[in-house]
Every structure is written in C-alpha cells, then in structure tokens.
C-alpha cells in the first residue's frame, strides 16, 4: 500500500454560463473571493503565500494556509490548502481548472491529499492498525 493510494480526493465539475475570464476573476480577486469562498489576502502569483479565513468551528481555527503552486491564467490555478492542529495538520492541495465550452466554462475542482495519508500516517503505523481503523471508519461513516 503506497501513501498515494491511501489518499482520498474530492473531484467536482460545474458548468457555468460565463466565460473563463469572468470565472477566473472570481477565483483570483481577493474581494470577489471574500464574497463566495472566504476572506483572503491572495495575490495570484506562483510562490505567493496567503490565507483564507472563516469563523472558527468545533473542528478547526478557521484559518487555511495556502501557497500558489501553479498558475496558468484563465486555465489553471493550484494552491496548497493547509489547516488544522499543529500536531497533525490537514495538508491538501486545491486545483481549479477552467475549460471553455460553447456555453461558458467548465470549472473543475480537485481537492486532493485527504485522510488517511495525513491523518493516519502516524509514525510506525502498522497495516493491521490501518485496516482496523478503516473498518471503524466505515462504521462511523455509516452512523454519521
């Protein structure tokens, strides 16, 4: 079992009746981002660090630490998405892909690197332990 195979991802696709240039603005303009995603000091350039902030909840302090990994104007934007307790942070990557369509833009969201890689890769974790927890997880999910 490789770490990669253990990670989970969110993959969602949306068809928007607006041109890529407009969608791109909503993805990169801090003021617009604040209106639909979270308040942010993003400056969209590769290597830039920024944060997203929202109300703290039971599970986290509401701060997401990001760094721009890839940027291809009006086509692709990728950044790290880190948050959570210091002892075991959520360390994931969010990637937006914009594809022009006849009617507007196909917007693809990929959010990769979820549990169990970052939450379950405790040092020295044995496969047996992981299997066991996997079973427990299924039970928890079934009950949730």
């Amino acid at each position, binding site marked *: 079992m490789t770490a990669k195979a253990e990670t*989970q991802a*969110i993959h*969602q696709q*949306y068809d*928007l009746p*607006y*041109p890529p240039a*407009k*969608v791109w*603005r*909503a993805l990169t303009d801090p003021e*617009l981002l604040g*209106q*639909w*995603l979270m308040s942010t000091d993003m400056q969209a350039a590769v290597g830039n660090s920024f944060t997203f902030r929202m109300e703290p909840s*039971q*599970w*986290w302090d509401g701060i997401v630490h990001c760094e721009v990994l890839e940027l291809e104007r009006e086509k692709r934007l990728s950044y790290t998405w880190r948050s*959570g*307790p210091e*002892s*075991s942070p*959520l360390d*994931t990557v969010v990637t937006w892909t914009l594809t022009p369509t006849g009617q507007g833009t196909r*917007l693809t*969201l990929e*959010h990769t690197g*979820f*549990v169990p890689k970052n*939450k*379950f890769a*405790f*040092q*020295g*974790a*044995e496969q*047996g*332990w992981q299997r*066991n*927890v996997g*079973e*427990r*997880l299924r*039970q*928890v*999910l079934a*009950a*949730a």
Partner: protein
Amino acid sequence: MRRDDAVFRALGDPSRRAIFERLGRGEAAVKDLTARFDISQPAVSQHLATLRKAGLVTERRDGRLVYYRIDPKGLRPLIDWLTHYQAFWPERIDRLHALLKEMDE
C-alpha cells in the same frame, strides 16, 4: 486542548496506538493488555486514561474489573475533514454561481 488535538496526540504514541488497535478487536481489561504488550500496569492505565479523555475509549465496570472498548464516535475528528469539504465545496460553488450572476462582464 481542543478535542481533535487530543485525538491526534492520543494516537500519536505507538503504545497507545497498539492498545487502541487491540481494543478495536474487542473489549479488554487492563490485565489483558499488560500481558499482551509487556508494559507495566500503571503505564497501561495511564494510556487508557489518555485514550478515554480523548473520547476514543469507553470503560465498563464489571465487579472489580474494568473493561475497555473503542468508542467509534471518537474517531470522528479523523474523518471530519473529508466530509466537511464534501459538503463545503458545493455550498460555496452555489455562492460562486450567485456572485457570477451579479458580476459585471
């Protein structure tokens, strides 16, 4: 300490993880765990107390013996991120839709 922090710290220790794994296969008393892991009884009790405080383990008293078992609800913080974002993104994209409608070209 925040609850999720407590869970990660509790399971960050190899001995506690081993005890937790063992309890995942069925409830056990301190003496069963002491025999299995070659750890002193006070140390096992200490580990169990940490797991219990983190909400990962519950105890059941039967006469003079106390039996411990996993509380699946305690694992909730470990899976919460994925479930959180599975709900989070569609909700935010709805807001993006609404914003795009209002935006100038």
